[in-house]
């Protein structure tokens, strides 16, 4: 009748949990994913080996992985920033689209006229502002009307997708290439607006990826050292205590949601400036960067620097998924694995609250 293992409440959270939980979660996800593969007649070791190979080991694989990791780092930071306050902004997907719309707008508009540096900065800022404004809808509704931010941010994702379709496929907008008649596509940006790529350690690293690292450091400083970060921590720990010391909770919710949206917005800008060089309505919607960002944030346990690392990891997985896709490697497999990672990461959080104790040891302790 008694289970062999029982849960005992943890009073303190030891530091080693910070890295142990993500590792255990990953391992757990691989095991469960392996069972799914086995059940559907695939060899898990073979599949995993090919993912590892295509994601991280083979020639040029790291370059592709970093390319995928760039948007994931931004959407991961987007989710982490908001989740820390307890605002579940899952609108990174839509905020990324809207950021791309903003960056493409100023990129097309400034074209080749302004100096390269200025153009790039303005594109980044445009992505931030567009993403922040779109996310503020969620923040304002949550803080003013206490509207469930999960559903509103998700609805806004669908709406952002429809906006993208409208701009490129269903209208003659500024973003659409007038020359593309039969198969509509975005208007290409001037070469001078393309963001630089650096060769580091033999890999191509996009400017956006370096920007993501910088953003992670800034976010880390905000959370660890700033007054705003302190206030966010108090609100998340105890809303009543925040009210007691007069922290402007509503304002903070709006500010943090906007900040979170700005991060996803830069991710969108980087898609335009670093990679596509036009507003790629189809490509943006194909990859689920926003939703994978939630997985990134959860596995990084909301640590901004960790999010960069996890983004690279999941970037490798996603990247391998692209290049392996075929009859042998069904689509949906990568998404399933990502979902499993999030699943086990959520389950792994139990270790912060409880520790597992063998029931037998417990009885002995009493008898002693």
């Amino acid at each position: 009748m008694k289970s062999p293992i029982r849960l005992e409440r943890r009073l303190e959270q030891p530091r080693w949990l910070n890295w142990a939980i993500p590792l255990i979660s990953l391992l757990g996800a691989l095991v469960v994913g392996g069972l799914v593969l086995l059940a559907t007649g695939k060899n898990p070791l073979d599949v995993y080996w090919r993912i590892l190979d295509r994601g991280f080991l083979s020639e040029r694989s790291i370059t592709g992985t970093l390319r995928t990791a760039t948007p994931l780092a931004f959407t991961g930071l987007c989710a982490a920033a908001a989740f820390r306050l307890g605002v579940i902004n899952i609108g990174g997907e839509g905020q990324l689209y809207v950021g791309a719309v903003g960056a493409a707008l100023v990129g097309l508009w400034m074209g080749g006229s302004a100096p390269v540096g200025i153009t790039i900065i303005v594109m980044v800022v445009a992505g931030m502002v567009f993403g922040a404004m779109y996310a503020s809808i969620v923040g304002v509704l949550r803080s003013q009307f206490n509207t469930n931010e999960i559903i509103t941010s998700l609805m806004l994702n669908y709406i952002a997708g429809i906006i993208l379709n409208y701009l490129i496929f269903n209208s003659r907008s500024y973003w659409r290439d007038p020359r593309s008649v039969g198969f509509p596509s975005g208007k290409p940006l001037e070469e001078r607006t393309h963001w630089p790529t650096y060769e580091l350690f033999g890999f191509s690293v996009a400017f956006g990826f370096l920007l993501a690292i910088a953003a992670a450091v800034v976010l880390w400083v905000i959370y660890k050292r700033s007054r705003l970060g302190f206030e966010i921590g108090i609100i998340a720990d105890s809303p009543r205590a925040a009210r007691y010391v007069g922290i402007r909770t509503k304002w903070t919710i709006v500010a943090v949601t906007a900040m979170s949206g700005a991060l996803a917005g830069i991710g969108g800008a980087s898609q335009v400036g670093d990679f596509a060089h036009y507003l790629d309505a189809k490509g943006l919607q194909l990859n689920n960067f926003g939703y994978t960002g939630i997985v990134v944030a959860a596995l990084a346990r909301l640590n901004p620097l960790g999010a960069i690392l996890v983004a690279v990891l999941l970037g490798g997985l996603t990247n391998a998924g692209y290049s392996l896709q075929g009859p042998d490697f069904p689509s949906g497999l990568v998404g399933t694995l990502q979902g499993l990672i999030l699943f086990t990461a959520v389950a792994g959080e139990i270790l912060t609250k409880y520790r597992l104790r063998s029931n037998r040891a417990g009885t002995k302790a009493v008898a002693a």
Partner: protein
Amino acid sequence: MTNSAVRMTGVVKRFPGVVANDGVNFEVLKGEVHALLGENGAGKSTLSNILTGLYRPDEGTIELNGSPVVFGSPKAALDAGIGMVHQHFRLVEPFTVAENVILGNPETPFVIDTGTTAERVAELARRYDMAVDPNAKIWQLSVGEQQRVEILKVLYRGAQVLILDEPTAVLTPIEAEALFRTLRAMTAEGRTVIFISHKLDEVMSVSDRITVLRGGRTVGTVNTRDTSTRELASMMVGRSVEFSRVVRQSPADPGNVVLSLTNVNCEDDRGRQALHEVTVTVGRGEIVGVAGVAGNGQRELAEVIAGMRSSTGGTITVSGNEVPNGRARAAIAGGVAHVPEDRLHTGLAAGHSVEDNMALKNYRTPLLSRFGLLKRNVITSQAGDLVSKYDVKTPDTATPVRLLSGGNVQKVLLAREFSTNPRVLIAASPTRGLDVGAIETVRGRLVEAADSGVGILLISEDLEEIMSLADRIVVMYEGRLVADIPASQATREQLGLLMGGAKMEVTR
């Protein structure tokens, strides 16, 4: 002994870091009211939770009517005839009285017949002289009525042994008298009542026998008629205690007003008016006690002054300056310190470290932050100073406050509040839940602050505390101040009546 209803022998219950029950022996006879007396933390609640199947004892045995029993769940205890009336009611607020009473009863038919059940509940209530409408929703009822629903619940399930955990804490003296009548009606029918309390007077008036617990152990069991409050008090705390008025170093200066409320109104969380035209002043170095049964607007009063809640009318001034309505930062800057009732989750952020909590009120000052960035080393050293000055027992200043004991939590809170050099202190139930040593420390600190000129509004349900500390006593009833009496002229009886809503001329 066939007369034994419940016998618990050698009961041990450990929690991480605490031994809540350490070999408790406890026997209750059929048809008696048996009081379980002890301070907070003496192990009364743990013992009753073991008896009702919520906790499992690590060691020890329980016998019911002479035969040993093991309860795996509250349901098992209930089925065996042991029912508990908790201090915090276990009621489903949107349900009606009748629905709450039949909830979980195996005899309830699959399809509920609302009319019949309401009738049966009403009949049961009449039998024990309890006035309550079976079709009312719980949230519409007063606290006293809700307690009757709790009692009806266990009676409806046929409980032979009823445990009441601090049942009078939320009642007016008049409601308490009614409760005692109900209890006697139940014992007259042969039911057994276990009455948990830390109040000596009511234990003396309601019980047949008394078992005293201290520090998780049984001190002894006595017949009520053979004992006295004095003897019980010394059993309870381990030495004899005297309640007396404290001696003040420097007298209060009521003429020099530091806090003044004029016709203040406000609403509670549900939008109902919680304060009606409240007018009160606190002078320099004066302690004004606010007596009253919980839920009569005390929390709203404290929150309005602290700027946590907006008033809907009236003015509040501190040292002659009007405080902007509903702005906590302005109140803090104006010199209002606040020790809230809910220390761990309002006064402090429980998951945060001691040093963060020490900085909660002044992290925005230039001392602790510059250009929006915090000076962590100053925050740490500030906390170190306060920890040693106020003698907080903590491993280090990085320890989360939720890991500290109740007394040390309160010390952290007081240390921070006094470090802001307040003119006014609002203290809500500042000693509730603390052990004797901590109570003395906290009271000492309050008196010390008053001696140094701070005006204190002491909100408490504990009449002893108010009578021993306050210079002046006001009584709150249903959101109104119904009396304003110099403490030297106040009597327990008079205050008790006022708390229960009896009318009296406001003397001034």
